[in-house]
């Protein structure tokens, strides 16, 4: 079993989830105040990584991140590092590929908050910021938790985008999904089984956590 790949995957998944969910929160909040047409366009862009084949997404990201591209050159000038075939590039690709998994649960959670709850908060003297912290975030937190868990577990399992952008460099870009593929290619079924079992366990635990959170928050105002 490739424990370095497991650690790298956990690091990538953790970083993706922790960086992406706050960004998704900000995006959802900003969109809620925009006209419907603008929201529709963003919704389409947000959902795109869901339907795009990962290899296609990975291919375009590889093109955009490459040393010849503006982004690649800019990043190299800034940090002295490359975006392709490095952990940095992998993280950026992972952030983009996971946008729908972070944004959509948060969007649904905020949409489910009755408008009157916010109006009651304003009429109680709470500022917009206080309303967000004391009313909206607590009501939306199962959705935020779902975004964290989905982003985390989806990143663990991501294969196509990771392989295209990161390649398969041990300790730098080889994630557990790629390690499983490698094990199978090398007829190392034991390692493949062990690593797959870990992913299954993490996924089940993640879904159980979302389920528990959804059940244990009193959303009913009847």
């Amino acid at each position, binding site marked *: 079993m490739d424990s370095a790949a497991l650690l790298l995957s956990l690091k990538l998944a953790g970083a993706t989830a922790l960086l992406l969910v706050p960004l998704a929160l900000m995006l959802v909040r900003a969109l809620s105040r925009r006209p419907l047409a603008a929201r529709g366009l963003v919704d389409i862009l947000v959902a795109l990584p869901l339907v795009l084949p990962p290899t296609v997404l990975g291919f375009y990201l590889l093109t955009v991140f490459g040393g010849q591209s503006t982004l690649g050159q800019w990043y190299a000038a800034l940090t002295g590092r490359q975006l392709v075939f490095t952990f940095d590039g992998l993280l950026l690709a992972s952030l983009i590929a996971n946008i729908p998994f972070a944004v959509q649960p948060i969007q649904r959670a905020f949409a489910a908050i*009755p408008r*009157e*709850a916010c*109006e*009651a*908060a*304003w*009429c*109680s*003297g*709470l*500022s917009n910021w*206080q309303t967000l912290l*004391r*009313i909206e975030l*607590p*009501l939306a937190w199962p959705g935020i938790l779902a975004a964290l868990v989905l982003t985390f577990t989806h990143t663990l399992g991501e294969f196509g985008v990771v392989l295209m952008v990161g390649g398969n460099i041990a300790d730098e870009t080889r994630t557990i999904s790629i390690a499983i593929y490698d094990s199978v290619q090398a007829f190392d079924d034991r390692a493949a089984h062990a690593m797959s079992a870990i992913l299954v366990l993490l996924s089940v635990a993640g879904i159980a956590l979302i389920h528990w959170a959804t059940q244990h*928050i*009193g*959303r*009913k*105002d*009847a």
Partner: protein
Amino acid sequence: MPKPAGALELVASQTQPIALQAELACAPGELLALVGPSGSGKSTLLRCIAGLHSPQQGRIACGGVTWYDAQRGINLPPQARRVGFVFQNYSLFPHLSAEGNVVCALGHLPAAQRAGRARELLAMTHLKGLETRKPAQLSGGQQQRVALARALARDPAVLLLDEPFSAVDQVTRRRLQVELARLRGDVKIPIVLVTHDLDEARMLADRMTLLSHGSTLQSGTPDDILTRPSTAQIARLVELNNVFGGTLESVNANGGGILCWRSHKFEIARANGFAPGTRVSWVVPPEDVILHRRDRPSLGERENPVGGRVDDCLHLGDATRIVLALEGDARARITFSVPTHVVRRNGVATGEQVRVSLLASGIHLMPAEAEKPG
């Protein structure tokens, strides 16, 4: 109109999204009922006062502070308006306890005093012992009390109640209405109650404003509006259905007169300033239609008697609603209620001939309606 300190005044007009043409005023300690059918703009007016909706034109002021003025570009946010708002479905914060809900509205107090004040308010609304319950663990009536405690917590300049009794059962409703009537003694601010229930308005309100299609039609005491509507349209809105057309024949020295209607000549107690010969609409409230006893004539029989055939006789518990088709005109109908035991004793049933008196003091004259046969 005199403007006592602390009064609420509103003038609002708009064409979108729903037409509004409204004007209302409410003095401190006064309960104003905003009455009208569904979709008449009652809730929109409350939302205007709270700052949740801005009319295109108008001015809203409370306690001498201008909250909204379209011309001067003043539009305070809800947070700056000091309103206590009880929403129709209460809109409690479902993740917070009863106490937590009230504490949210106590931001103006130092943090250390909030919990204590919240418990005081909950005790005042009869919720002692339920402070830690979440809204979902409270009955509808208890939720309404939490909403009321939360609305009062802010030390509001005006209390707004949006159909606060519509989501509870009849028994709870009566109890909450009594509590509101009691509470009024302690709260010296304008209270605006939105309701579509005329009985509720009559029972609780000092004054009422009638709203239809976004326009305020008449303001006055409930008694004024419910027995002396200023137009035939208002009469029908307040469920006075005995509206007819007629001509004022003469006016006497006491302000009363004679009203001609078909072949009848009715005595009336008040001519309401109409000149003799004027075409008028007139209404008689159901309680001023008196059924004659068959067995024994009574004194009232000489007062504006009319006869007819009972067209419909509907028992509604203690009272029976009778629709009388009047003699000589198949279209003219008068509706009135009598105690069910009276109906039984007199053998009143559909198809029977009966006679009634229209009390002169109950007949109310209004400007004639165009194109409405009486």
